[in-house]
């Protein structure tokens, strides 16, 4: 299963949750809610979208990992 992990390097640019509202959402300050938290599952049909999400982050805070 592929998982998305987002580090504490998140600065709240909002490109990830704008691209993939099915996977991610923002907190009241604009940071992604899973910043610094546990990785989340990525369903097989959303893997390409998850790769786009990784490439959208100017902080290089997002990784797509195998688990």
């Amino acid at each position, binding site marked *: 299963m592929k998982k998305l992990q987002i580090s504490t390097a998140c*600065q*709240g*640019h*909002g*490109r990830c*949750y*704008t*691209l993939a509202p099915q996977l991610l959402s*923002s907190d*009241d*300050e*604009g940071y992604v809610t899973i910043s610094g938290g546990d990785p989340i599952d990525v369903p097989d049909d959303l893997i390409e979208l998850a*790769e*786009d999400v*990784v*490439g*959208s*982050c*100017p*902080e*290089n805070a997002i990784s797509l990992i195998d688990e």
Partner: protein
Amino acid sequence: MESSTISEKKGAEVTGCPVMHQDFAKTRELGAYWALANELRESCPHFYNEYENGGYWVFTRHEAVNDIYKTPEIFSSASITPWEPDPIYRFVPTQVDAPDHIKYRRILNPWFSPKAMEAAAPMMREICRGFIEPIVPKGECDFYEAFALRFPTAAFLTVIGVPTSYTDVFVGWVDAFFGGFGGDPEGAEGMATALGEMRVFWSEQLDNRRQEGHREGDLFSYLLESTFDDKPLDDEVLLDMCTVLTLAGLDTTRAELAYMFHHLALHPEHRQRLIDEPDIIPLAVEETLRYYTIIFGDGRKVTRDIEFHGVQLKQGDMVYGLVSGANRDPRHWEQADEFVIDRKRNNHFGFASGPHRCLGMHLARREMAIAVDEWLKVIPNFELATDAQLMERGGGAMMSLSTLPLRWEVKA
């Protein structure tokens, strides 16, 4: 004279790269600054740019610009204008470093968050329509003057709780300030005057809220009730904050809007794509911010001696990360020199990066997306209404057109 001799030696000795004498403040032909950034980036990863009494390092490629943004402990924001290491203004929190910086940001972030902007969107849309409707039957306008200057200003004032009747006053202040920001000595006096007048205005607003009490949806009330290390914000900080919000929020969005509409005027296929697929408007906005970034470069002050990408930097040196070079660097981007309207992997630096990323980004994007959507609904086809060469203000401040004449067919 002595300092310029030292500078010359520094540039030549350390880099083996040319010392240059580029004036980034002057007005050039539209597109000249991005062309210059491409040229600098492809000829050398770094330069030493000398001016009359000093100089600064310019890093031209994506990798180095990224590293500058990601190491704020080495690259301080104490000054963000490399030609002015000790400016007369202090932007809070723009020019504040860790550990205080994040405390200010946490006060301001919720006010400008995506959720707050979502809530403000219907009001922004209404303001936007109010500016477009009277223009439609005319069949032509100066987009910059009639729309780009005014819509973001009115939307911003409404978001912070100032009546939109102040729109023209703010337009004047912001113009005067940026006349001097890029280092043009002729603009220095106007910049100082505008700063002074703005501060008087903010003081009056703050005094008014102190006397008349809390107002809902009002940034001044919110700031007066906010705390820093459990204490209220002091007056100087309040004024510095209000000033930077205004300057950063008003000059930038208008410039990006004008570049975006200039692009759309020249590319009917992109207009049609956005009409057919309005869902990709946010992606087109991001691509505008990458490809037509108005940030020529971003300055930082070096906090300690360090070797950085082959350059020996000294404490107190100024560096300039060439954002417009990084945003089109083929070492980083696929189709770097093409406007890809639905680009998804768009980690551009148009809003900077690192802890100082643009606070108002969610407001700016929202304004741009609404502007494109509303405009195309009523003026789906338009073109440039001039054959004259359009000019852009220097990237020393932020690049901007000063006029954008458009025309379209009016249905009988």
